[in-house]
């Protein structure tokens, strides 16, 4: 039982003292919004699937799904282009629903990190993840949980984020010179192995960037994918990095993202008793890992923050003349998800500014702004730097990220979908000790 006592008593020497005792006991529990949150995300998955089925109600939908499943899926493979508009949405709905069901079966409590993971799965299902190439990672994590004799639920976060490496499986199965049956078997075995090593590695790599890159699994997976790509190259495999981007569905995808963001805002406002309570605390937060807005500031305020960030990212894409292709839809959904887990307008804007600044002062060709927009949106992984060290540091982080991100893709051959997370890990690891030193000198 929780007990708080505040009393003023006269001390024996004649001084007044304050007596405060605060207890936390085991029967304290989280607010009971789990059922609501599960239903809310399930509704989101159903809407994704319905959009897919309604927009493409023919055999082409199935054919599109087949093309998605059999695509090598490494960066950048837009499922709008490989499959179709409908099949990409259906793919996202199916994989997100499967992930949600997995969490529900394992009785995982939904919170900020879990929301971020689910929206990341949903977003990357528009350009790289599908149920075929994600299952081996989930299986590998499950085997690891059994080996260390701990419940799977403790590793569910690593499993969901870990499907960033799903192109490794698809590439071996369908992109290499191996015949399909052998490719699928080897791909699955490699995927299971990756799933087994990912939980301990991702936890360990947290110390590298000290929690200042939100996409920690992206960094870990970058290291793993770099090794996988190196092994493939050692055996003579040339990894092609495609650039398949569909621009013809921009209006429909933009309307979807706008509707989703506005819906999150409205639902959040209603859940928050028609108030903005908790928003001040969210904006004041640096966002350093682990910042769970759901637990700290409430579900309502978190949903409002997600909606605001979604609208901000949509405005940013339009402002830079971008189109809502699969990867850009994925990037916006990922930022929306991470707005339950560290990102907010105050710590994200400096990163966007830094990335744009780097693009415009360099001779980079910005006539096709896909790379610029993806780098900026995913660069919000570094939002904690802006939140903790200030706006200028955030701009510098965005600048450095833009310079680095285009150079790291070769290392993993696009086999790590969270390429920006890989880059952000390095940026954070370089900047944090330097900024700490500056603070120490100042003090």
């Amino acid at each position, binding site marked *: 039982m929780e007990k708080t006592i505040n009393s003023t008593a006269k001390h024996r020497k004649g001084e007044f003292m304050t007596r405060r005792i605060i207890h936390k006991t085991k029967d304290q529990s989280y607010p009971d919004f789990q059922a609501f949150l599960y239903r809310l995300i399930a509704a989101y998955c159903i809407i994704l699937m319905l959009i897919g089925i309604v927009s493409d109600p023919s055999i082409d939908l199935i054919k599109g799904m087949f093309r998605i499943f059999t695509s090598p899926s490494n960066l950048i493979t837009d499922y709008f282009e490989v499959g179709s508009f409908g099949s990409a949405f259906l793919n996202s709905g199916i994989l997100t629903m499967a992930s949600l069901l997995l969490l529900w079966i394992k009785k995982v409590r939904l919170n900020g990190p879990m929301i971020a993971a689910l929206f990341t799965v949903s977003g990357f299902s528009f350009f790289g993840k599908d149920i075929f190439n994600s299952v081996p990672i989930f299986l590998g994590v499950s085997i690891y949980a059994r080996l260390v004799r701990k*419940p799977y639920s403790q590793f569910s976060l690593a499993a969901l984020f870990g499907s960033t490496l799903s192109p490794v499986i698809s590439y071996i199965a369908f992109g290499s010179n191996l015949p399909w049956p052998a490719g699928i078997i080897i791909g699955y075995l490699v995927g299971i192995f990756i799933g087994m090593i990912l939980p301990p590695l991702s936890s360990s790599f947290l110390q590298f960037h000290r929690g200042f890159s939100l996409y920690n699994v992206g960094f870990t997976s970058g290291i793993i994918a770099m090794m996988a790509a190196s092994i493939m190259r050692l055996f003579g495999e040339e990894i092609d990095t495609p650039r398949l981007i569909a621009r013809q569905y921009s209006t429909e995808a933009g309307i979807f993202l706008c509707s989703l963001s506005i819906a999150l805002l409205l639902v959040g406002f209603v859940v928050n008793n028609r108030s903005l309570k908790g928003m001040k605390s969210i904006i004041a937060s640096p966002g350093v890992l682990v910042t769970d807005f759901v637990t700290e500031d409430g579900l309502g305020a978190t949903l409002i923050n997600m909606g605001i960030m979604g609208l901000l990212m949509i405005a940013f894409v339009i402002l830079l003349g971008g189109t809502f292709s699969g990867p850009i839809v994925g990037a916006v959904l990922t930022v929306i998800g991470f707005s339950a887990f560290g990102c907010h307008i105050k710590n994200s804007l400096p990163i966007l500014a830094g990335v744009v600044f780097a693009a415009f002062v360099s001779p980079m060709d910005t006539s096709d702004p896909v790379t610029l927009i993806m780098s900026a949106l995913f660069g919000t992984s570094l939002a904690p730097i802006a939140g903790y060290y200030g706006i200028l540091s955030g701009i510098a982080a965005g600048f450095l990220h833009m310079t680095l991100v285009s150079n790291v893709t070769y290392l993993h051959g696009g086999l790590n979908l969270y390429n920006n997370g890989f880059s952000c890990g390095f940026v954070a690891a370089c900047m944090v000790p330097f900024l700490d030193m500056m603070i120490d000198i100042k003090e």
Partner: protein
Amino acid sequence: MNELLVYFLSNDIVDFQANVQFHNNGFRVELQGNCSKAPADMNEFAKMLRIPRNPNMEDYYDELLGTSKSHAGSREYHLLGMMIDDAQISYEDFVFKVSIYRRFEV
């Protein structure tokens, strides 16, 4: 332990004792020190430690605890709160005391 030490030192509590006790089901860490007034952010600190335990998070993020350089401030106390089953924070007779308990099995 590191996070509790940092909290004590950051509140200028330099005269303190630490005690660790292992039991069959878990272990308890206690720190108590002398100070002329209660830490100003005692309620905020307690709020962070009072967050219910969340076993789904701890195996992944526990590496962020116990690092040599403290960045997250209250975030680390929040993370610590997610990893413990019981916390008692008190200030009485010029003695500030924190006692946390963690069960081995969830």
